[in-house]
Every structure is written in structure tokens, then in C-alpha cells.
């Protein structure tokens, strides 16, 4: 039971971090209908900046710089590439983002080289004991920050001018433009927000219990794909649900892999994707996604 609770809490906190990544993914999709495969490199960029800057600036300033840097990278991708790509299908734009991702990831991993970079966070390896459960402080912070950010995000989406502009654009870009919404700014801000969220996610993916940022950190970003899809690509609530489902599935499957030996060792990695397939079989647009109505 203790093990179960511990795994569950861990799963939820990691899931919250996945939700942050998935949220960025969803925001970009809503604003520009582009499936953004550069997310892994945005994440790496944010983490890299924090790791490189914290000895000089201290952790908090470095974090701010990392968030700003990743947001800038996101914005630049939008401004220099996405906006200029005159292609008919969004599928091809998705492939462009794959190209950008290959470029950025290669360069960043080259910069990171063979090092394992610490991010200099203030929580280090502290743990909390909640009854019989032990959980890393970073995880609690991650859960808190993710919950706060997601709440703030949902509120902003609902109540700020930016949020209204974003939702209006997502629903009907041309009509939003008729209202005076500058679509370029909306999509630029979506990419920047996605970058910032990815940088914060990077922080929590690279601190204790993982030893630090290195070239393999991108692998974690892959988990955001099933999270975003199974929640529904165009739903912010979906991103949250998807992230949690993926995190909990992964944690439970890894934790109980001895009992689940018949599924093969290391099922934790594949499980989120299998869950995604099962959900897509029943709901092709994801749990909270909207089905598109054909117009002729």
C-alpha cells in the first residue's frame, strides 16, 4: 500500500510536469494548428541555459533567463520559419518542425557534450516524509508549480484579453482577425509561452531524483506526445489529464514491473503509448478533443 501511494504521488508529480509540456504543445496547436515536434529541443534549450548560467547568476536569475531564453527560441522559430512557410498542409508544417528539432537538438547536445549538468536548484536532495511515504521535495515543488501554472493558465485563457484572443483565433482565425486581433502576435505568443513552459518542465525533469541535464533529457519530452494526444490536441484540460495519465501509468508500470513480468521488463516506457492507442480506438480525437465537422 505504501509503495502504491508512493508510486502514485510520484506519478502525479511527474505527470504534472508532463502536463506542462503537453500544455505548451496544445497552446501552439490551438493558435496555429501546427503539431510542434520541436518541443524536445525547446526543453533542452531552457534546461541548458539554466545549467550554464546558474553558477554566475544564481539559481533564480538563471531560471528566469532560461525561461526567457526558451521563450525566445520558441518565438524565433515561429517568426523565422513557421510564419514564412507557405505550405498547404499542416502535416508538412509538422515535418518542418521535425527538421528544426533535429537542428536544435544536434547543436544543443553538441554543446552539452558529455557532461551531466547540475541546475543548481535550492531543493537538492531533500525529501518529505508524509506518514509512511517519502517523496522528494522537488516533486512537491513540481506538483505545486505545475498546478499553479496550469491554473494561472486556465484563468488567463478565460479572463485575459490575450486568452480571449487566443481562443477566438483557435475557433475562427479569420473572424478573430476581423476583430482586430493580430494573428501574428497570437501565434508568436503561443510559441513563446510553449517555450517558457518547456523550460520550467526541463527544470523539474533535470533536478533530483534525476542527476542533471544531459543529452538524453530529450527522451523525457517524448512523453508529452501521448499526453497531448490522449487528452485531445486542442484541449487545455486534456493536456492536464493526459499528463497525469501518462505520469501515473509510467510510475505504476515501472514500480510494479516485477509483478507485471509477463508484459516484459521496462514496460514503463511503452505503457503510455499503449494507453494512448487504447484511448484513440474509442475516441479518435482524444478524451477532451473536439471532433471536426466537415464543411463542404
Amino acid at each position, binding site marked *: 500500500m505504501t509503495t502504491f501511494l508512493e508510486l502514485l504521488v510520484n506519478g502525479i508529480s511527474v505527470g504534472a510536469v508532463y502536463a506542462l509540456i503537453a500544455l505548451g504543445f496544445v497552446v501552439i496547436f490551438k493558435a496555429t494548428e501546427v503539431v510542434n515536434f520541436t518541443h524536445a529541443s525547446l526543453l533542452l534549450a531552457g534546461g541548458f541555459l539554466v545549467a550554464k548560467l546558474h553558477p554566475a547568476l544564481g539559481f533564480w536569475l538563471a531560471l528566469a533567463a532560461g525561461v526567457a531564453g526558451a521563450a525566445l527560441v520558441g518565438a524565433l522559430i515561429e517568426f523565422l520559419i513557421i510564419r514564412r512557410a507557405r505550405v498547404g498542409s499542416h502535416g508538412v508544417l509538422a515535418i518542418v518542425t521535425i527538421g528544426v528539432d533535429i537542428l536544435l537538438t544536434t547543436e544543443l547536445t553538441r554543446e552539452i557534450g558529455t557532461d551531466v549538468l547540475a541546475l543548481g536548484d535550492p531543493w537538492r536532495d531533500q525529501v518529505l516524509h508524509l506518514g509512511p511515504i517519502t517523496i522528494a521535495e522537488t516533486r512537491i515543488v513540481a506538483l505545486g508549480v505545475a498546478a499553479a501554472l496550469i491554473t494561472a493558465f486556465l484563468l488567463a485563457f478565460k479572463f485575459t484579453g490575450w486568452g480571449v484572443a487566443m481562443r477566438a483565433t483557435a475557433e475562427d482565425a479569420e473572424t478573430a482577425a476581423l476583430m482586430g486581433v493580430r494573428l501574428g502576435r497570437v501565434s508568436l505568443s503561443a510559441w513563446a509561452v510553449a517555450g517558457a513552459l518547456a523550460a520550467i518542465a526541463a527544470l523539474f525533469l533535470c533536478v533530483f531524483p534525476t*542527476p542533471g541535464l544531459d543529452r538524453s533529457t530529450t527522451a523525457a519530452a517524448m512523453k508529452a506526445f501521448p499526453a497531448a494526444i490522449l487528452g485531445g490536441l486542442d484541449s487545455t484540460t486534456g493536456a492536464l489529464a493526459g499528463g497525469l495519465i501518462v505520469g501515473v501509468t509510467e510510475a505504476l508500470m515501472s514500480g*510494479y514491473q516485477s509483478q507485471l513480468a509477463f508484459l516484459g521488463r521496462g514496460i*514503463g516506457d511503452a505503457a503510455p503509448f499503449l494507453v494512448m492507442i487504447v484511448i484513440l480506438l474509442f475516441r479518435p480525437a482524444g478524451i477532451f478533443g473536439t471532433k471536426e465537422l466537415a464543411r463542404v
Partner: protein
Amino acid sequence: MAKFGTRARIATLAVLALAAASCASDKAVGGAPATGGDGVKTGPGVTATTITVGVVTDLTGPYASLGKSLTQAQQLYFEQANAAGGACGRKYEVIVRDHGYDTQKAVAAYTEIGPKSAAIPQFIGSPMVTALKQRIDTDKLLTIPMAWATSLLGSRAIQVTGTTYDIDMINGVDFLTKEKGIKAGDKVGHLYFEGDYGESALNGSKYAADKLGLEIVEQKIKATDQDMSAQVAAFKAAKVKAVLVSVGPRQAASLVGVALAGGMDVPFVGSNSAYSPQLLGTPAAPALLKDFYVMTAGAPVSAPMPAMQKLVADYQAKYPGQTLDNAVPTGWSAAMIVDEAVKKACAAKDLSHEGILAAHRSQSTFEGGFGTPMDFTFFDKPASRASYILKPDKAAVGGSVVLKEAAVSDLAKDYPVPVG
């Protein structure tokens, strides 16, 4: 109709070209290994003035850190060897190919440099070497894999240096029972990578556990897994008294960090690939310094041997500011093994692949200046069964110091090593 005519013409052209092809090709059968002016029989990779050695390594993949240290150490070795006059009146030339831990690229690299190399003093990645095992054997190309899985044994051309992972783990379990109070009936966790590194190691721990009446609690992970919380939870739930670690440095750091933070205060014994001095800069450092041990066949760079101290000094002079880890002496001695084989082959006036290989396999007590003596005359057994026990140490060069000198445990002595 016109189409058919064109096709026929193309076909005719092709046949003509084919007929002409043989005349000018470099590939035309050139004959057997030649004998040079100095009476030394030469083979691929050897000319009158040079001996080419090929390095197939990982500089951009998951083992980039290992690959970098090994490659730089070997470049240093051959540079110094050349400065000292080379071997057999010839200078060494090193070709480096990076495969980024991609088997296809490794196969491509071997296809490219195999035919131009006299020996391969470094080949990273057991899946890559396994994939090429047959070809390496057919080519009789002396190859030193930088992986210590038992699956690499049993090939005459492939020389696994030192111990294999299973032997390290047997010696490690032995250490746990003798020094850390583990006794029959206790549970011992083993965290290992999928693949033959982890599985070789698991073989060893299972053997030792079987002999000593322990129970092994297995947790298998992938190289991409980063967070070991779930695994620690499982070990804790099983109430293990110690944990064996046959994973990468990152996973090891996460494991000990989480375990210690969660109040799981047990000794950890790692394979030689589970530790890297870079970890001492991460939050896991205190946990690593507390109760973590590394089993390895080669002496660490901090070992107080004259040869080692010279190597450390030379390396630091050549590569200032670069990480100095235990892979440096490993790479260095592998280069030395090749150099010795070439020198012996030179004495026998045969620098063909077969000549170098035969010379290599005639050595039964190779001693490279540091570490344990190795026996190269068998190829279905590890070259050594003695493991050092190291302990992480922040102050030491290379981040670790010898806790116990190399020794062969009784268990390891009688252990039948699985081959292939």
C-alpha cells in the same frame, strides 16, 4: 517501339561497360600479403612506413564521455610511441570513426576502416561488436572491445581486457558478505540495463547469490530512464539489504540519491560503467560518497603507481582541463596491448592480420604497468578474474580511490564463465 530500342541499346551499353570494367579497377585481385624491403610480411593497414590502427568509438552518443577519454588516451599513447621511434620501423597512424552508438554506422565504419587497419585498439559497444563478430573473426583483425560482456568471449580475434561484468559482480557480492554483513537469506537488489552489459552482470550476481543463499531482487531499466524513484520504492518494498548497480552513471546517481534521501541506508556496489566522476558535481554526490563502491579490473587514475602518475601528468599536459577518469588508463592499456602485439609480430617478421593476432595470443602474462596481469592465450575465458574495489572520492584525480587492491574471490575462481 522507340522505347524498346532504347532499352536494348542501354542493355548493350551495360554489357560493354561490364566487360571494360575489370581492366581499370583498383579492386582487381592483387594477390596475397606482400613482403616489404625489410623482410617483414605485411598485410592490410601496414605499409613500408606506417601502421594504421582503427578506432571505432562513440563520441556523439550515450557513451560519448567514455569514448572521448579512451580515444584521447589512445591518441596520446600512439603519439608517444611514434616519438619513441614507432614500431617495426614504422609510425602509427590512428583513424577514428564515431558511430554515436548506432549499429548501422558502426558496421559502416568497420567496412570502411577494417580493410585499412592492422588492429582495432578500441571498439565501443557490445551490440556493435557482436554484430560484427563473424566478420572480425574472418578478417583475423585484432580488436579490443570496450565492453566487458561475456557475449564477446569466444572469438580469437576479439580480446576482452580484464574481467567481465559477471566476475566483477561476483567479487562484489563476495565483498558485501565479507565486509557489509550480508548473510544467507538476505535479499540483494540488482538494478541493471537491458542488454548484455546488464544481463552479464545479472548472471554473475545470480551465480553468487545462488552459492551464498541470497535472493536477488531484479529491476531492469532502459538507458533512457532517468528517475529511479519507482525502482527504489520497489527495492524498499522488498526490504533489500544491499543493491548491485549495473547501469549508467546517471541512473546510478539517481538510485543512490533517491535511496539515501528516502532513508534506505544500504551499501551499493556498482559495475565499472556505473560510475563517472562528473556525478560528484550533482546533488547525488553525498549519497555516492557515503556507501557506494565500484568494481573494476583496472586500477584507477589515482592509484599510486609510477606508470599511472606519468600517464596522468602526460594526459593533463596534452588535454588540459579535460575530465580525467578511469577510462584513460583503460584506453591506454588497450593501446599498449596492440602495440605489444605489433612489436612481437615484428620480431616474427609477420605484420599480417594473422601475424599480429598470433603474436598477441602468445602472451600469457601481459602486464601493462598498472592493474592486474592478463592472460591472452585463451579466448573463451576472461583475461583476468581480479577486481579492484574503488570508492568515490572528491579529492582524488579521476574521482575515486582504491579501497581494496585487486583480488580474486573464491567464488569467482570456480565460476564457469558463459561464452558467446
